[in-house]
């Protein structure tokens, strides 16, 4: 493509800027509103940090934050272990079972969230398991694990098939070869998978909504009920803080990768 002319270049930048503005406008609005002294969404009633104070005093928000993080961390750990093992297992299977397993792994991705959530809800009700923290965790592990497999698999496929066998020939025990050859080879994939699992579970609403009771709320389900109730400026404060935290995290990551 010859994008030499300054005009087309300007146009392209302008277009991208517009799209970015579209994506960021609500977030900017949220952040501005979080400093509004009043409760109204539209009227500016002076600058205040009132809602930030409220945020940390609100037991329900703090509880839900705890549940969200706990579920995300636990689901990440379990699904990473489960998924990595499964990826190694599936990789060493014969062709038939392998493709069967991959279809099974892709199945949750093709199922709409609402169906996944409802089907798990039915399972818990059918088996008379009280819904709550643990059922939510189970659900999160269930939808996280396929993503871990899907990010580890490509790394395994890229690996030289004979490295592992060479290690065995050189006298390594299978467990040594596993820990020192296989796992390091797909380390990058495992990390990506874990990160993906963490973010997916942090952001999930639909599946959590159906698999928990009103007693155990994560941030998403809490926001959902708050949104039905009316204006809740503390949530604006929360999202502003989340945004700043994310930005800081990204800057750190970016800096570290550029240093490497």
């Amino acid at each position, binding site marked *: 493509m010859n994008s030499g002319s300054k005009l087309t270049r300007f146009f392209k930048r302008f277009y991208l800027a517009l799209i970015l503005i579209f994506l960021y406008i609500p977030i900017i609005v949220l952040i501005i509103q979080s400093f509004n002294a009043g409760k109204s969404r539209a009227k500016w009633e002076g600058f205040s940090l009132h809602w930030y104070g409220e945020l940390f005093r609100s037991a329900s928000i703090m509880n839900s934050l705890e549940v969200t993080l706990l579920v995300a961390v636990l689901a990440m750990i379990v699904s990473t272990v489960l998924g990595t093992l*499964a990826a190694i297992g599936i990789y060493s299977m014969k062709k038939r079972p392998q493709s069967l397993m991959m279809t099974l792994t892709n199945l949750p991705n093709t199922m709409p969230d609402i169906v996944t959530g*409802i089907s798990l809800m039915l399972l818990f009700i059918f088996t008379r398991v009280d819904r709550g923290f643990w059922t939510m965790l189970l659900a999160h592990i*269930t939808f996280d694990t396929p993503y871990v497999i899907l990010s580890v698999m490509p790394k395994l496929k890229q690996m030289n098939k004979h490295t592992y066998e060479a290690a065995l020939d050189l006298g390594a025990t299978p467990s040594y070869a596993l820990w020192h050859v296989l796992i390091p080879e797909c380390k990058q994939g495992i990390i990506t998978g874990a990160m993906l699992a963490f973010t997916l579970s942090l952001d999930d609403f639909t599946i959590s909504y159906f698999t928990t009771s009103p007693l155990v709320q994560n941030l998403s389900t809490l926001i959902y009920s708050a949104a039905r109730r009316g204006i809740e400026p503390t949530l604006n404060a929360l999202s502003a803080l989340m945004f700043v935290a994310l930005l800081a995290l990204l800057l750190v990551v970016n800096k570290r990768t550029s240093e490497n």
Partner: protein
Amino acid sequence: MRYDMQLPWWAWLLMGTALVLFILMVVISVRRNHGVKRSLFASPYTLWMLLFTIVPVILIGYYAFTGTDGTFTLDNFRNFWDSNFDMKKLVGEEYASTIPRGTVNVDTLTYSLWMAFLCTALSLLLGYPAALFMADRNMKLGSSLVVLFIIPMWMNFLLRTIAWMSLLEDNGLINSLLRSIGLEGVQLMYNSGAVLLGMVYNFLPFMVFPIYTSLSKQDINLSEAAADLGCSPMQALMKVTIPLSLPGVISGITMVFMPSVTTFFIPRVLGGGNTMMFGDLIESKFLTEGNWNVGSALSLIMMVLILISLSILRKADPNGEGGGIV
């Protein structure tokens, strides 16, 4: 307590057995020096998927094909086709004949499909140029721009959707702005347009990323070769770049279409509950009416529809090269 686990005894038994088996398996596979069956590593996952993916789907099927008394019936599907079906049985014979076929469920489905189609088309229209310009090497934009596109996705989507409400309300920011410059306010919310906006806003990044990935993987020499062979930039775009990015487009369409059909929060917040989408309908069947049988039938229908559309899309991209964010 919040973290109490109240499980039936057999669940503990099951979990205990699974754990013991798993530990045994690991111990054995480490101990045995030769011929370790690594394929066994997948068994915990297989078991997990059976329990928490396959069994639940079977349960949906079970509820969809049974009545409240647990016997086999197709009534739930008749209820989808004729939303007045249950009502006709309850009002008594004298009135039943006066009730026409209820089209609520079918209408909601077609409306959802139409909205999802519009959302996908709009996302493609807005997203393709964005991805194209981002991938343009002459622009020297680099990865920082990609990061800028990712950040909003990490913010809770419910919060972002609610923020749109403050912008679109009659006394919201946009209308206040319009009035302050002396224009008439317009009603932006409580209609399908607002719902569509909310959907495009939420799903646009899912369109941009796969297209961007497949575009940036393209060999730059290809379009240069096209130029050397006398193609205008426009021709090169139409004949080389776009066809080669098709896998990305397909994957983008899949990733936008699927969640759009099943949205159930956006219509309520931005549409003021004036329009119901299929997701809303399913949710209300389960959580407001407590009618699991019809709810399951509706879920099953949606699942089948999505599987069909996916397989059509797969035909267009048989190698599955599109790749998503993963």
